[in-house]
């Protein structure tokens, strides 16, 4: 058995970058003050926090630093935005549109609002994995208060035309929130260019520690705070601020932005090597949402007919490789990925889905090792599949 360890699940989480850790550590030990205290330790912490806020605001193109609210994670940012914007100014009803392939951190609060007086439309993406502006235009109503469409999808890596969608939402008087957990730092991200009212970010997707995040909220936008208490973050997010986390988030984001001109094309080339290699070596394999007009450089999602995802994952894990799947068997709910189903992927194909996501420490050798390892794993699982021959006959027939 090999000792090799190849991490190819960067869309799930990233390791904290040593430079980020170095920047944050002093705020855990030396400058540990509460940013809300008046004495020197507190002022030092507050200064670091506000400096981090300014750096994040600059990086995302915000008009003012106070448009950045630090949170504990992407989930908190999403929950806060959906519930806080929908129920702003005491609103108890209205129409909300969310895309059908949102992360559950957006879907769950929308569903909860749906039980509490709001009407929720789940807008399906097209088979290319993209939410089409015409479809949003058709779904918008006079009473639509909020639209939430993710910027980059975490499973299939497709990028949504947020600027167009925001314009359409605004024309009908609705706000637009975007979950940018997967795009921040990975592709250009500018709140002004996108025209969004709110955007969610997660630190652990950009080499900052888990449990860090931020929410962009455009100046003047009313939002009911989700966490209430001491009134921190200008009353929009109570709770003693995680100064070290804010410093880490700002540092991580600046590193992403500084390195992107080289890193973006490097990752895209690795992804293309992966896609070409996998489709070339594994019969009947397909790239999900292959026709997407814009995709993230670091995520590729495949269907490998005739195998089950969890079994594939376990064999790869035995060879030291970490990847993920949308198979029903591997999900706690025993349901296949709602993202794959939303783009029209048949249930039995979702069963054999494989998501590979690349990052800062991925090399060509890692991609090649995955390909080398995957080929015999797929052969072996297909040989154990009692229906494989029948399935192949169907696949061959479908190709005619």
């Amino acid at each position, binding site marked *: 058995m090999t000792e090799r360890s190849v991490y190819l699940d960067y869309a799930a989480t990233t390791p904290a970058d040593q430079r980020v850790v170095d920047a944050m550590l002093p705020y855990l030990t030396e400058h540990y003050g509460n940013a809300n205290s008046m004495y020197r330790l507190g002022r030092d912490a507050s200064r670091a926090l506000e400096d981090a806020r300014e750096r994040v605001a600059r990086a995302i193109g915000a008009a003012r630093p106070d448009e950045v609210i630090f949170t504990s994670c992407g989930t908190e940012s999403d929950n806060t935005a959906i519930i806080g914007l929908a129920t702003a100014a005491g609103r108890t009803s209205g129409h909300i549109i969310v895309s059908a392939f949102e992360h559950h951190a957006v879907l769950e609060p929308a569903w909860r609002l749906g039980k509490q007086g709001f009407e929720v439309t789940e807008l399906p993406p097209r088979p290319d994995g993209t939410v089409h502006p015409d479809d949003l235009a058709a779904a918008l109503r006079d009473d639509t208060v909020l639209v939430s469409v993710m910027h980059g999808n975490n499973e299939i890596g497709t990028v949504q035309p947020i600027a167009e969608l925001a314009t359409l939402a605004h024309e009908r008087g609705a706000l637009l929130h975007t979950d940018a957990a997967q795009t921040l730092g990975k592709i250009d991200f500018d709140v002004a260019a996108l025209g969004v009212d709110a955007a969610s970010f997660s630190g652990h997707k950009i080499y900052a520690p888990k449990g860090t995040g931020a929410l962009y909220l455009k100046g003047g936008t009313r939002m009911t705070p989700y966490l209430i208490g001491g009134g921190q973050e200008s009353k929009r997010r109570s709770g003693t601020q995680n100064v070290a986390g804010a410093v880490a988030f700002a540092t991580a984001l600046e590193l992403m932005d500084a390195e992107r001109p080289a890193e973006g094309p490097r990752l895209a080339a690795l992804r293309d090597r992966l896609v070409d290699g996998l489709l070339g070596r594994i019969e009947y394999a397909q790239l999900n949402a292959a026709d997407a007009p814009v995709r993230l450089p670091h995520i590729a999602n495949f269907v490998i007919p005739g195998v*089950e995802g969890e*079994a594939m994952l376990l*064999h790869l894990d035995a060879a030291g490789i970490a990847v993920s799947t949308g*198979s*029903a068997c591997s999900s706690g709910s025993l*349901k296949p990925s709602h993202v794959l189903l939303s783009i029209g992927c048949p*249930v*039995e194909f979702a069963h054999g889905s494989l998501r590979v996501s690349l990052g800062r420490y991925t090399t060509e050798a890692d991609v090649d090792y995955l390909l080398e390892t995957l080929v015999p794993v797929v052969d072996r699982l297909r040989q154990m599949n009692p*229906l494989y021959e029948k399935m192949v006959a169907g696949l061959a027939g479908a190709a005619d």
Partner: protein
Amino acid sequence: MIYSDKVMDHFGNPRNVGVIADADGVGEVGNPVCGDVMKITIKVDDDRIGDIKFQTLGCGAAIATSSIVTEMAKGMTLAEAVAITKSQVAEELGGLPPAKMHCSVLATDGLKKAVDDYLVRHGREPIAVGTIAHDDPDFDPHAEDDGEHAH
């Protein structure tokens, strides 16, 4: 969710994989749409399972339970073989995660079907019919478990 070492052993090195070409009985269960499919072929000597092979499309637990069921059943009388329960299978594997208990039904049902197939081919009464979970039109392999074990 963590699998026991024994589950991982049977998953990584499944025993008795394949198809017996001149099988005396064949059992196939599952539904390709939910992804769980299993096929068992048996040779019967003197009303005992002489040889047995399986093929499974499914998760780690589905493959491991299929493998261990073939080991357990080899040499058993037909009556003993159809009496193997999913709890016995799980126990033999050192336990299964609660969410994976249902996977073992695939293997026990496959075996029951193979035995009945053998009996019917020989003009005898099937003995497992009525106890096969996958024959129940309302059977949902991914439904909440039936309380045989604690969650």
